[in-house]
């Protein structure tokens, strides 16, 4: 296979050289790349793509990747190996004379590249590439691509690609002035089946020359799509809510331990989250410099480390400060506020005040389409992760003696001691656990938010809100609280806007607490009512 392709390429090269002397449209187009004008580049792309020259794909791909160089009026392609070839002749070019500069790109040029590559790669052996190409043609609605499309559809066997090709054709036909109405009606049909935002856009923006029957059909189809989209919109909003709720849950769940269970008003909680995020950053830095291959696993590696880092800091804090403050919850507020200032400034001093870059592994990029909903993988990952952390924590607190001891210690420290519970160790472990969980929340949050010294502050108020709204001392309350607030926020936002939505939510919390003065999952019974 490879041998064959090499051979083919050599052959084509020869062919190209032969044609060089003829100075066809390809050769005429090439010099336009050298003018450093986007309009010229745009035109050159079109011409090169239309030329049918076997080097066209190479040239355009090189252009896309910044490997198309110009110098002294000539155009060169830099191969991945570093070799230069002359774009006009396809011959290797040893020592370039003078300085070479890459041809510059802008969005207009990028779009042109995409469209050109789209029609040129419709027959690519790789199905993913073909799909990509079909989408590109769909976006460009380039009438010139129609013949290539027809040809591709004829031989396409892969269903998703075929569908994509057909919608692309439909899009072109709809805007093509001289297409027969029957074809246009079929196109409307195809788009109605596709039934998404883009189809809707096409159907509701028919060109002025569209025949009336097509306009009517398109109008009906558009209405249908609108209804469907509106239906899915509700789910989409709920999903946004769940994913926001998961973020809140992650941020709050550690606090559910240190505050909810241990009654420490832990103002430094957000900084524990921040430490987790910075750990992720460090891990990725190390991986980038020493083991680039592991990047995909960087978050998984960061998780235990973040737990350890934040957990150890938590234990250290507990042993040096918090432990002197049990039974005086309001003083923990004062001390942990001080600690949070110190941690923030510490990180600022060490890592600088600006954001740090945490990358997203490839497996977390992209989106999953469910119906007309789009679920991005990174949000899915965060939702799954948040629920897992919750489940594990619930198990730890319910099925290990640590959970029991922590509660006993917070309810009556002296008596717990007299029952033989090692109060100091339980305190340290529990605070460490809460902080550690905050740390792993930081790993997740590094994916969607700033990794900066201010990271924690952005979450501290929301976290307290969630824990208190759910009912202090109840892990389930934290879960339900986070989800309720997340979903309510996202259902309000489309109507009220982000600012008013948030205000409305805060007022709703205030009102809700009037109805349930001890939160959603209130503790009941003699003790609390006393």
């Amino acid at each position: 296979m490879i041998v064959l392709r090499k051979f083919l390429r050599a052959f084509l090269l020869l062919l190209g050289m032969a044609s060089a002397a003829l100075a066809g449209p390809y050769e005429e187009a090439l010099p336009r790349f050298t003018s450093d004008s986007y309009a010229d580049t745009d035109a050159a792309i079109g011409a090169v793509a239309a030329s049918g020259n076997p080097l066209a794909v190479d040239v355009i791909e090189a252009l896309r990747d910044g490997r198309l160089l110009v110098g002294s009026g000539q155009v060169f392609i830099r191969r991945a190996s570093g070799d230069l070839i002359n774009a006009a002749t396809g011959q290797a070019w040893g020592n370039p004379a003078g300085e070479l500069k890459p041809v510059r790109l802008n969005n207009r040029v990028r779009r042109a590249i995409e469209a050109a590559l789209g029609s040129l790669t419709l027959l690519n052996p790789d199905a993913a590439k073909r799909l990509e190409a079909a989408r590109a043609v769909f976006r460009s609605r380039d009438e010139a691509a129609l013949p290539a499309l027809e040809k591709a559809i004829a031989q396409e066997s892969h269903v998703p690609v075929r569908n994509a090709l057909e919608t692309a054709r439909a899009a072109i036909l709809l805007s093509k002035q001289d297409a027969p109405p029957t074809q246009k009606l079929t196109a409307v049909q195809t788009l109605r089946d596709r039934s998404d935002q883009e189809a809707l856009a096409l159907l509701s923006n028919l060109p002025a020359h569209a025949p009336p029957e097509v306009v009517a059909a398109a109008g009906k189809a558009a209405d249908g799509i609108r209804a469907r989209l509106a239906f899915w919109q509700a789910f989409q909003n709920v999903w946004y809510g769940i994913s926001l709720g998961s973020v809140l849950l992650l941020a709050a769940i550690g606090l559910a331990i240190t505050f909810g269970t241990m009654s420490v008003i832990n103002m430094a909680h957000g900084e524990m989250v921040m430490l987790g995020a910075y750990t992720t950053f460090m891990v990725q830095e190390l991986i980038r410099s020493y083991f680039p291959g592991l990047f995909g696993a960087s978050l998984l590696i960061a998780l235990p480390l973040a737990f350890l880092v934040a957990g150890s800091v938590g234990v250290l804090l507990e042993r040096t400060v918090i432990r002197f403050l049990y039974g005086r919850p309001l003083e923990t507020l004062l001390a942990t506020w001080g600690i949070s200032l110190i941690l923030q400034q510490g990180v600022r001093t060490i890592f600088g005040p600006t954001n740090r870059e945490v990358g997203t592994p490839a497996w977390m990029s992209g989106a999953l389409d469910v119906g007309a909903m789009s679920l991005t993988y990174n949000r899915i990952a965060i939702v799954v992760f948040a629920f897992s952390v919750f489940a594990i924590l619930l198990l730890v607190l319910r099925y290990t003696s640590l959970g029991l001891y922590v509660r006993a210690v917070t309810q009556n420290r002296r008596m717990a001691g007299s029952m033989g519970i090692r109060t100091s160790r339980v305190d340290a472990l529990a605070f460490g656990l809460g902080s550690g969980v905050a740390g792993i929340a930081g790993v997740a949050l590094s994916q969607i938010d700033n990794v900066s010294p201010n990271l924690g502050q952005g979450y501290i108020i929301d976290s307290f809100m969630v824990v208190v709204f759910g009912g202090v001392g109840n892990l389930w309350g934290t879960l339900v609280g986070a989800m309720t607030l997340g979903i309510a926020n996202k259902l309000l936002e489309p109507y009220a806007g982000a600012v008013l939505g948030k205000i409305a939510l805060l007022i709703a919390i205030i009102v809700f607490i009037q109805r349930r003065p001890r939160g959603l999952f209130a503790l009941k019974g003699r003790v609390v009512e006393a």
Partner: protein
Amino acid sequence: MRTQYLFDRQTVLVLSILAAAAILVPAMNGLVPPGSALHLSDHLVPLLGKYVCLALLALSVDLIWGFCGILSLGHGAFFALGGYAMGMYLMRQIGPRGAYADPILPDFMVFLNWKELPWFWHGFDWFPFAALMVLLVPGALALVFGWFAFRSRVTGVYFSIITQAMTFALMLAFFRNDMGLGGNNGLTDFKEVLGFPVQAGSTRVVLFVLSVLVLAGGYLLCRWVVGSTFGKVLVAVRDAESRTRFLGYRVEHYKLAVFTLSAMLAGVAGALYVPQVGIINPSEFAPANSIEVVIWVAVGGRGTLAGAILGALLVNAGKTWFTAALPEFWLFALGGLFVFVTLFMPRGILGAAGDLWERSSRRLRTRRSPQPFTQAAE
């Protein structure tokens, strides 16, 4: 709590210090020649005035938190509302001296194309009305908010968190330009107050003295409140709310009364603050600000009134000093201070001083003195 004896001594001490400040600051600023070591430079007058206003705010928090156990994490809201009421008055006083020379509309309205003054701006050009609003707006908010919350028996952290939600919501609301209160920039560029130029040194001195007097008045008021039977009920509510109910006290009325009073004090503090710092904007509603006030009180000593004043002065002076002396490291110093105070002065600076005092004075009057009580950790 404190014996009657200590109580009087503290009051006398606080009042004499405040009186000394009210006399010495103008004297050292105006009478002592600039070269002298005793001269108080011009820029320190509004700075001290600002501290005094913040001390009044701290006092208002101590009244409800220290004596009634109501931890408000939203008291900055009342302060800011008082400040806005004053700011609106000051804004109206600018008149046609604004950038766009509109005789009625403040600048920020002109350039965002407002055509007329929103209804709630009316009346603020008249000082007595504005002064009334300084008391009424925070007071009414506290009354309504408190009425619902206390009636529903929202207590402890639940109350703290909804006060925080309140100030947070107000912050977001005031940030909105559509509120008609200057959005993020707030109200600024004031020219005169009651006809006196706000920038003038003499106005500054007068404002300072006024703030000190108001602080002294606020302190006396709080002293009187907590010293009365009413104050004892407050402490009873703080320590055993439901028991107080069984004795036949309407706990919610007590809480409401003291909460509203405290909010009004905070409002007055805000109103005095604004002309001295020259700006009021929504960041005063930031939850962190309200938390900080609580921290001043804790540093000074909760439940001592004088401690609140001391804490506010100390922390804020510390901030001023640290941010200039150690601009890159001051947060370490401030954070460290908070940790230090909690660990080594569990009842705040004044509490620690009180312990020392009691310990030394007990040696003199061993038998009769009240025994100290360190609450056992539970």
